[in-house]
């Protein structure tokens, strides 16, 4: 459903991505792996509308979304999480998820200030659904905490709850396991599968090989801005070039 074709990104004289093409499908978890500096996060930043690529195109279904800003992509059903966890720190955990329902609600400034009846009903609906999504990731008991006071691992889960609240069609996760302990990583794997089962395409940039091999249905390997290989986990594990890129042999 999401197709990236021939993306090239040049920063100054540095070629961060060189003619990279790949696709993500519904109800599939697609992993993007590669050593540091391979261009994984750059790719995510382009797809999610934060950078503008030097050349190449991104299609969601058959719609060209190259260069669309993030708020427009959100309306088309694309959402992402961040490597460094971008929570709204001074808002409560519940309110964070409620922001995720922004595109699912419509009251304007005037309706909100005057508290019109329609707005009250909408507000109640937002609150209930936000609670359900907190429940989905298993942190409903922390709803009233300030997001800034959340333990790091729970912050990751909150980011996923917030993204899921948008009822997206594709979710891009940028290193969701970074900074998690092994137990939290196992829980994360379960959650990512649960996300896939709800009919969403999951794109996963990740360093934790165990997690990638565990959950991904299909894997793309990047190295130094180029695509090295793609395939199922077994095919990737057997590829000598991939092993070399990671271990620095050859």
């Amino acid at each position, binding site marked *: 459903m999401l197709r990236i074709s021939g993306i090239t990104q040049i920063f100054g004289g540095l070629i961060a991505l060189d003619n990279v093409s790949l696709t993500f499908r519904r109800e599939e978890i697609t992993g993007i792996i590669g050593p540091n500096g391979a261009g994984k996060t750059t790719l995510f930043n382009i797809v999610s509308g934060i950078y503008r690529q030097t050349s190449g195109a991104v299609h969601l279904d058959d719609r060209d979304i190259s260069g669309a800003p993030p708020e427009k992509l959100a309306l088309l059903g694309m959402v992402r999480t961040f490597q460094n966890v971008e929570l*709204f720190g001074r808002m409560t955990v519940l309110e964070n998820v409620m922001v995720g329902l*922004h595109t699912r609600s419509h*009251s*304007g*400034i005037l309706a*909100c*200030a*005057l508290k019109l009846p329609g707005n009250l009903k909408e507000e109640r609906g937002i609150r209930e659904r936000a609670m359900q999504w907190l429940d989905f990731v298993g942190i409903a008991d922390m709803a009233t905490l300030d997001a800034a006071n959340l333990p790091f691992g729970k912050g990751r889960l909150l980011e996923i709850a917030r993204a899921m609240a948008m009822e997206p069609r594709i979710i891009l996760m940028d290193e969701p396991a970074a900074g998690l302990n092994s137990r939290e990583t196992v829980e994360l794997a379960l959650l990512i599968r649960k996300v896939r089962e709800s009919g969403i395409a999951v794109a996963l940039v990740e360093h934790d090989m165990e997690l990638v091999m565990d959950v991904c249905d299909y894997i793309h390997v990047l190295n130094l801005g180029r695509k090295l290989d793609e395939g199922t986990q077994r095919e990737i594990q057997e590829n000598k070039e991939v092993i070399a890129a990671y271990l620095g042999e050859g």
Partner: protein
Amino acid sequence: MKRELLKFLIFAALLLLLPLFFQGGYLLNVLLFVGIHTILAIGLNLLLGFAGQISLGHAAFFGMGAYLSGILTATYNVNPWLAMIIAAVVVGIMAFLIGFPILKLKGHYLAMATLGLGIIIYIVFNEAVDLTGGPSGLSGIPNLSIGSLIFDNDLKNYYLIWAFTLATMLLSINLAHSRIGRALRAIHDSEVAARVMGVNARLLKVQIFSLSAAISAIAGSLYAHTMTFVSPASFGFNFSIELLTMVVIGGLGSIYGSFLGAALLTLLPEMLRAFQDYDIVIYGLLLILMTMFMPGGLARAFPAIVAAISPKKPEGGQGSA
């Protein structure tokens, strides 16, 4: 949310009863200014405390409201209520148009741009003598009236102004607890994440800038029709800074804080009169001490001080709006 409403009703009742304690007199006149300043501080707080965007030019929007109302009524005999609406709409639209290029800027650059805007408008107040009366001001502005009730003394104006102030507070509290309020705070905390959530940050910032300017213009209209005289001196750069100080001292993002800040900065200079020439020194020192020791503003410090003084109780929630 019910507690929020109860808190507001108690607050409103107290303010409406307040004039009973001093029959007319000087203090009542000062309280008119507390009301007007509260409206202005809330308007700026929506922009600064919620959306996290600074403005050093808000005195200019206040002035535009005052002058538009003054000129339309004194020179062109327009009905004062109609003049107030026209002023709010014109200033709101102007801020909307200016907002698009200006709010692309961030931090210090936005501060500089709004500062420049404020100064330009201040110069217009002074130089467009035919329209504004120039430095000597514009007089003969009529009072507001409803039927035969003319708001021509301090007590009547107290109720007029505080009706507007309380309405502004209530609407702003509603807004703060809505999807728009959350979107604004989200922009403040992480603009990129807010955008990924589908918040049109650029448009929302401009809209809130425009709303904030329109609120300031309404305060300006009230000021013009209460004082029946306006001159540029009230709308200079100094006053923009004073407004900013009210918002920060009161507490960013707190509606009641804006009231506390406005009340303190309006009443304090009056109380310090006793110190004669040293008043400005003491005033400055107090502001420095407050920003050092109450970084969360009066809105956060107030409950903490009350808790510290009162006998020990099991831990209570942090109540802030």
